[in-house]
């Protein structure tokens, strides 16, 4: 097996180290970005639930079921990422249900995109309903796709830059090699001239 020369070892080490650092950095950034996006989506959905809950609660308490239905239809229409919206009363009977037309998959309650919250009547201090919401993960998938694309692009750019860097190093090593050859291939025998003038003997 052919052994790698010093030149190859140095170049490969630099390339691998640079690749490792850049990929690790981009990966970390991507993971953080995804996590932040998930947090943002969660906050957005929680805010939506907290905004509509008092209105649903009041409508239900007043027995305005038609007004509630119209309000929730409007909410579903304004938020196309809602795949499922269900309101059930205190006896767990569904009083409002919405499911996006193109969504035929079985929605899993364990999913990260599933949200539920009890709606309480603050005046009577009693549980009046439960809201269940299933949000589409299309936007999250889009972010993941973009992040992967960016990671690959950065990886590719770093790789090309490193190839140029390798050529540059190779060129630098040539002069180093020439110097080594002039000294019979032994770098350790090179005598460096000293500028210091000595007027004493040891």
């Amino acid at each position, binding site marked *: 097996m052919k052994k790698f020369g010093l030149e190859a070892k140095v170049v490969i080490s630099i390339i691998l180290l640079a690749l490792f650092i850049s990929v690790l950095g981009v990966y970390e950034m991507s993971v953080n970005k995804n996590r932040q996006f998930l947090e943002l989506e969660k906050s957005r959905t929680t805010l939506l639930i907290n905004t509509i809950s008092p209105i649903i609660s009041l409508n239900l308490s*007043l027995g305005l079921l038609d007004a509630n239905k119209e309000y929730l239809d409007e909410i579903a229409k304004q938020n196309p990422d809602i795949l499922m919206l269900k309101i059930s009363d205190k006896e767990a009977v569904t009083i409002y249900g919405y499911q996006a037309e193109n969504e035929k998959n079985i929605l899993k309650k364990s999913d990260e995109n599933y949200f539920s919250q009890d709606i309480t009547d603050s005046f009577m201090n009693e549980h009046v309903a439960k809201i269940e919401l299933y949000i589409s993960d299309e936007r999250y998938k889009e972010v993941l796709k973009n992040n992967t694309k960016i990671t690959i692009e950065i990886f590719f750019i770093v790789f090309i830059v490193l190839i140029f860097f390798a050529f540059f190093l190779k060129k630098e090593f040539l002069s180093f090699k020439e110097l080594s050859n002039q000294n019979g291939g032994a770098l350790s025998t090179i005598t460096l001239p000293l500028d210091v003038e000595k007027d004493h003997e040891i």
Partner: protein
Amino acid sequence: MKFKQSIIRLFLLISIILNTTILYALTYDDDILSIFSKLMPRFIMMSSQKERIKDNIDICVLNDDIDKSAALSLIDKVNNNYPNGIKNHHIHLVSTPYSEITKCENTQLLFMFNSNEKNINDALLFSNKQNILTMSYDEALLENGVEISLFIGRKVLPYINMKAITKNKVELDNILLRVSKIYLGKEN
């Protein structure tokens, strides 16, 4: 001839009385009264009227004699919907004829069944003087200056006369405004 005229007059009188009774009896829909019964205490609690509450929430139901049973039915519904009151306040309702409106002095809300123009206007003058919130079964009374009624269309919504509310210096909770329809006048 005279006898015949008397018979006709008597017949007309009886039919007017019967018609009025039937009209009122049919006008007051049980489901609508149920919604009003849920609405009344909440409008007090979700408005500046809650600051006027001492111990009990006091509501005065104004009616003509002919609407007495509808008024009592409304009171029953409120008591059934809020058997323990609301937010530690018991709800105290009284059915009062328009002629005895002064009995409603320390109430937070006046609920008005239909009556003649004079009674309605007198009640509104009284409520404005006493800063009492007014609610009527008939949305047409919003034009007279009643503050709250029900809009009955494709859906049922609280109907708020903002002009009258502002005039009476009553403030309403934002959520209440969001679930309600705003009355903009007869032309609109």
